[in-house]
């Protein structure tokens, strides 16, 4: 009874709210004259404002091309119907690309008018960016060679010693002449050096010890650096910045290096992966169009026609992290089961403009990590179930801090695991 009484009221309320809602909706429609906004939301994915093709044709001067503005309304709102009606221009346009343009039934005539106005009035911004870009490719600073500085300083010191010796000799002779004595005999540099060494034996011994120590230690470090690429930062054929891609744009490392989970190598991405985004982004924040144009050249992409028309050329990236042939390393194991972060071995790549090797990748570095690290992916992986059970059993009587099942405890530092 109660509910029946309430029903009409509810209905009225519903109708009233519908009315208000539609009122707001219509207001919304009327006020939606912002052509730029509508264009960016609906059209910009496929159409540029210039003459170049993205997916559909560029819209520069489109109004002078099409039969009429009404034709434009019909085409945008339901191009399928227009093509079917046999409109000659519509049929011609439909052959432009194999991809059909979607129908925008939600756009009213007024909205489309606003878009057309925006397209008509759009002017390409002055090419300030180009000059800025050429300025941004700063000349590579060439630091002076430290060896040259050292040789220069040594030469200067030798010259100074020679001049001072000559001055001392002539002053002594003037003194001799004043007191009526004959000139001093000339002593050679080498002889004088030997004399002073003989006179200061202890100091000489100290200097020699110091030099010997320096030689030995620097020689030791030089030998330790053989075959270690730490600090290797080769100039790549394209000035690709990891900072912009992985840092600023927060793209996951494995979007591009997608082999890391599946194969021995993480993989240097092929050009089609670059083109997934750069089909739409042809200008970068630092180098402008120059570097991205190199991707287009490699992919054979014609940015004006919006199609792959040119021959392809591989990009000759330079491998930074290179392990020698005598050691086996698999990314898959470390990323999938070991669940290691990329940064553990590659450093904070997100902040690098040019990729650099920050870790030594030496055997002692591998082994130290294997001694300290557990394998998080092992416990939940049925493949390792038995091994994990056995190892837990084996180490359960150890003191608490030694119960960790680290990589080395399951044979992770055996020679033949990596060298075979």
């Amino acid at each position: 009874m109660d509910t029946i009484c309430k029903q009409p009221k509810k209905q009225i309320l519903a109708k009233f709210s519908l009315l208000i809602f539609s009122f707001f909706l219509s207001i919304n429609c009327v006020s939606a004259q912002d052509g730029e906004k509508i264009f960016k939301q609906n059209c910009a994915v496929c159409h540029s404002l210039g003459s170049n093709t993205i997916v559909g044709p560029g819209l520069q001067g489109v109004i002078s091309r099409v039969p009429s503005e009404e034709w434009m309304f019909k085409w945008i709102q339901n191009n399928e119907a227009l093509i079917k009606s046999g409109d000659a221009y519509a049929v011609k346009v439909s052959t432009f690309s194999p991809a059909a343009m979607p129908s925008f039934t939600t756009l009213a005539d007024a909205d489309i008018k606003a878009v057309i106005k925006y397209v008509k009035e759009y002017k390409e911004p002055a090419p300030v960016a180009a000059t800025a870009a050429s300025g941004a490719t700063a000349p590579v600073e060439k630091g002076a060679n430290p060896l040259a500085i050292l040789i220069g300083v040594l030469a200067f010191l030798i010259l100074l010693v020679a001049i001072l010796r000559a001055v001392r000799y002539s002053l002594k002779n003037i003194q001799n002449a004043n007191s009526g004595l004959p000139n001093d005999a000339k002593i050679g540099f080498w002889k004088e050096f030997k004399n002073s060494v003989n006179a200061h034996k202890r100091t000489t011994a100290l200097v020699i010890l110091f030099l010997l120590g320096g030689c030995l230690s620097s020689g030791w470090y030089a030998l330790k650096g053989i075959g270690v690429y730490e600090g290797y930062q080769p100039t790549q054929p394209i000035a690709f910045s990891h900072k912009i891609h992985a840092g600023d744009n927060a793209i996951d490392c494995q979007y591009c290096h997608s082999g890391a989970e599946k194969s021995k190598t993480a993989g240097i991405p092929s050009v089609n992966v670059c083109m997934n985004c750069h089909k739409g982004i042809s200008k970068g924040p630092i180098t402008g169009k120059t570097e991205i144009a190199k991707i287009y050249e490699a992919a054979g992409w014609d940015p004006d026609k919006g199609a792959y028309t040119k021959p392809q050329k591989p990009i000759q990236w330079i491998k930074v992290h290179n392990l020698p042939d005598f050691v086996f390393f698999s990314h898959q194991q470390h990323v999938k089961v070991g669940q290691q972060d990329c940064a553990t071995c590659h450093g904070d790549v997100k902040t690098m403009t040019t990729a650099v090797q920050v870790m030594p990748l030496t055997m002692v570095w591998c082994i130290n990590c294997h001694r300290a690290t557990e394998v998080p992916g092992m416990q939940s992986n049925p493949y390792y179930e038995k091994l994990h059970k056995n190892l837990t059993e084996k180490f359960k009587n150890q003191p608490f801090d030694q119960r960790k099942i680290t990589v080395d405890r399951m044979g992770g530092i055996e020679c033949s695991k990596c060298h075979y």
Partner: protein
Amino acid sequence: MKKKVTKIISLMAVFGCVTLSFTSCSKHDPNSPGVEFAPDMYRSPSLESNLFYVNKNADGTFDTLASNRLPVAGTIPRGFMPYGYPNTLEGYEAAGLNLHNPLPKTDENLQRGEFLFNRFCSPCHGKSGEGDGIVGSKLPGPPPSYKTVLKNLPEGKMFHTLTYGKNLMGSHASQLTKEERWKVIMYVQKLQGNDAATVATDSTKKEPVVVAVKAEKPKK
């Protein structure tokens, strides 16, 4: 005797200076990997992945060899199944009608789908699928939202798009295996808000898809 000793000592001092000056200046060129012990182990004659090889021919010309190459024409990987729908408008429509997710809808698959979506799709499509990703905002136009424009997109069309690419979106077939693509699609359906239907009609999968196609038909 004394003279000889001093001579040797002074020679050593000079030698020490020279060695110090040389060793202290090594490893300053970022383009040089440094001294290599057994270089043929670092740049082996057998093709290693991701290295670019330059071979000198007998006549003095150079051949460059990329180690990442296309498979030999006509060969297929083990276990490979061809994808039967061509990269055309008809293929796209046909995939939408006939192609269905072969994977069971489990929590594990869905979780993996979410993980892969966040890695491979969210840069442009955004974590919520609204087209508000960081990279998406830098494209000429943001990708359409799963909740409005793409609300009723059938799973077959999604798979077709992931495989071949569509409009600005490129093919992701080189990054995602077929199974992974289906897992991603599972999660995209959750973002569309259509996953409940898929769960309810899991055993009779054909029904909801056909309905979805009908709803989608007016726009093309």
